[in-house]
């Protein structure tokens, strides 16, 4: 072999090596689809920030594999959500998705997701159909099924011995589901069940009715701006502090920055609060506050768990998520350290988790935050899992 041929061989080998190295470096694509604009954009932003915090802390890797996060905004529009999902599946060949903020958008996306056989780690939306008959072995949730939080509030109302409760929610599916969940675990009398027009800004008429009925407590489900309006007006009517206000998705990380002291005393039900003493949670809250200078919301916490779950699962399959059975088994095992402590998936891919009651109160630094006051439900399973044909 002469020198020229030898060097050509060497060059070829080197370039091949470089090519394989480049191949190994080509990052794993993860589609992040959430609601990032509009009045509800704060939710998706918290999901994104918390997810990226894990990715950045690991040097752009999850499970030791470099990842590329393709961030897309569904604008809270089901048609836009489906469009960007299809774009990512077809053009970018993405087979792993996370985010998902609103149930109605996720419901529209569930069919294309299922048809493509891709994985979805949902970190907020929790519609009932996907927990029951339409459950999917590739869908996993690090949040909750929508009813679980209001079930917690219903149990809390029963535990507190409230005899008469008045409920209010917007007149749409999620509002009705929330009240149904509340009623499932509340054993007292429902004085009245009021449904208001979606996005109604003024509740003076409804609040006057409450004042006249004098119930022991009220339960409301008013996400986003509706919650800000309702709580402000409830306080101005002089009822906050007089008639306890139980809520879900109303006084949370997305509305408390606007409400501040006005919301003090409101009770809210969910799975986690920033005062949790779990070491993973303590680290998460400290890191998040340091980086973003605000208290993380439950939406950030859910997404942080999604990133931790993926970190472990991707490591277990060494980045080869194309082996779907192995990757699915790794996710289902969920042997990551969650900020809510032990974490197990139900047969339908929703978590089995504790639901706490929180009161809006000032934290050690004098900021308005959520303080744990009770744990109405322990290792709680959603009401639909027995309709899901998947066996654990």
């Amino acid at each position, binding site marked *: 072999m002469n020198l020229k041929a030898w060097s050509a061989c060497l060059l070829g080998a080197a370039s091949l090596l470089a090519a394989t190295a480049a191949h190994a470096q080509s990052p794993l694509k993860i589609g992040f689809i959430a609601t990032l*604009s*509009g*009045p*509800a*954009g*704060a939710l998706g932003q918290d999901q994104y920030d918390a997810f990226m915090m894990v990715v950045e802390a690991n040097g752009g890797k999850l499970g030791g594999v470099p990842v590329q996060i393709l961030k897309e905004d569904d604008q809270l529009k089901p048609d836009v959500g489906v469009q960007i999902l299809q774009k990512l599946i077809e053009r970018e060949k993405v087979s792993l998705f996370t985010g998902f903020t609103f149930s109605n958008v996720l419901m529209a996306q569930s069919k294309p997701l299922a048809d493509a056989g891709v994985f979805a780690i949902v970190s907020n939306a929790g519609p009932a159909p996907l927990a029951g008959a339409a459950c999917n072995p590739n869908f996993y949730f690090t949040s909750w099924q929508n009813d679980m939080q209001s079930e917690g509030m219903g149990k809390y109302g029963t535990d507190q011995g409230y005899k008469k409760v008045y409920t209010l929610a917007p*007149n749409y599916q999620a509002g009705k589901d929330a009240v149904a969940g509340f009623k499932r675990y509340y054993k007292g009398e429902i004085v009245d*069940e*009021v*449904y*208001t*027009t979606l*996005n109604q*800004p*003024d509740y*003076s*008429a*409804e609040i*006057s*009715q409450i*004042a*006249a009925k004098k119930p022991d407590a009220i339960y409301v489900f008013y996400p*986003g*701006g509706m919650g*800000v*309006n309702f709580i*402000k*007006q409830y306080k*101005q*009517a*002089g*009822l906050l502090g007089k008639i306890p206000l139980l809520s879900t998705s109303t006084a949370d990380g*997305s*509305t408390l*920055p*606007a*409400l*501040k002291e*006005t919301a003090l005393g409101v009770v809210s039900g969910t799975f986690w609060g920033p005062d949790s003493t779990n070491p993973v949670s303590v680290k998460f809250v400290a890191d998040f506050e340091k980086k973003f200078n605000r208290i993380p919301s439950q939406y950030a916490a859910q997404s942080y768990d999604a990133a931790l779950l993926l970190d472990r699962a991707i490591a277990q399959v060494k980045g080869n998520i194309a082996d779907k059975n192995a990757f699915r088994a790794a996710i289902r095992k969920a042997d990551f350290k969650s900020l809510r402590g032990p974490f197990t998936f139900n047969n339908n891919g929703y978590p089995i988790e504790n639901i706490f009651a929180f009161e809006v109160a000032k934290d050690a630094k004098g900021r308005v935050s959520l303080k744990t006051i009770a744990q109405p439900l322990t290792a709680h399973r959603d009401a639909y899992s027995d309709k899901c044909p998947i066996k654990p």
Partner: protein
Amino acid sequence: MSIELLIVQLLNGLQYGVLLFLLAAGLTLVFGIMNFVNLAHGSLYMMGAYFAAWAYNNPIFGIQGSFILAAIVGIGGSIILGIVVERLVLFTLYERDHLDQVLATFGLILVFNEVARFIWGPSSYYMEVPEKLSGSINLLGIDYPAYRFMIIGVGLLVALGMFLLIQKTRIGMLIRAGASNATMVGALGINIKLLNTLLFGLGTGLAGVAGLMAGPILSVQPGMGEPILIVTLVVIVTGGIGSIRGAFFAALIVGVIDTIGRVFLPILLTTMVEKSLAQAAGPATASMLIYLLMAVVLAFKPQGLFPVKHG
């Protein structure tokens, strides 16, 4: 149903009505007198609320949390913004047909919403009720927020002021004359261009007052102007386009009907049909009431309740 509760609900309706009047007065002036469809009126209401809330939350000359200052910045800001928008964009559209005006002002809605989102973020912005009015007044055994009394008071004062301005002053006379025959007013040597700008500024100033009043009770957020704009359009059509008196009475009627309907219709329905059906149909039917009212009024009085006489 007790009489006390009915009175409180009437007050709620009245409060909603005067808020609508503040918006409708400006819109009906511009629509009726300048023959200009301004869909961006709701956005000026939103900007008024943002300006006021901003002035409330940030120190200006070392003063923070002053409602008076918030009022000056909120109302002043929306007047200036209104005049700037009128001079830069809208005056070129006066001669165009209504479709062009609708398209252009709809575009302005999108622009204002994005500007608000860009400056103040997508989440709700906060403004507190002034300290002295944060309590509630006990009225016949039911607590009623003091601040809402103030809204009613301010609304009625503005209505009185508008009446005096339109009926008793020279400007008012010119406005009325402009409504009847703008060309003739121009021919008599009146600067109709200046008059239009003043009128537009007055309208946006009133929208600013409405935004200021709404700031402490509603969440200030992008897009807050659109739902109320639709109701405002119902008000001015019902009341008769161009008529301040019509806007006043129609606003009160719409406010009271909407509030009373929202509360009592579901209760009324439960006595007639099954409870779950009534709970679903009640709010849906109640939100249609004001449109039904408009349809009925237009069927019998196509020019509205208080038509303006032209020519």
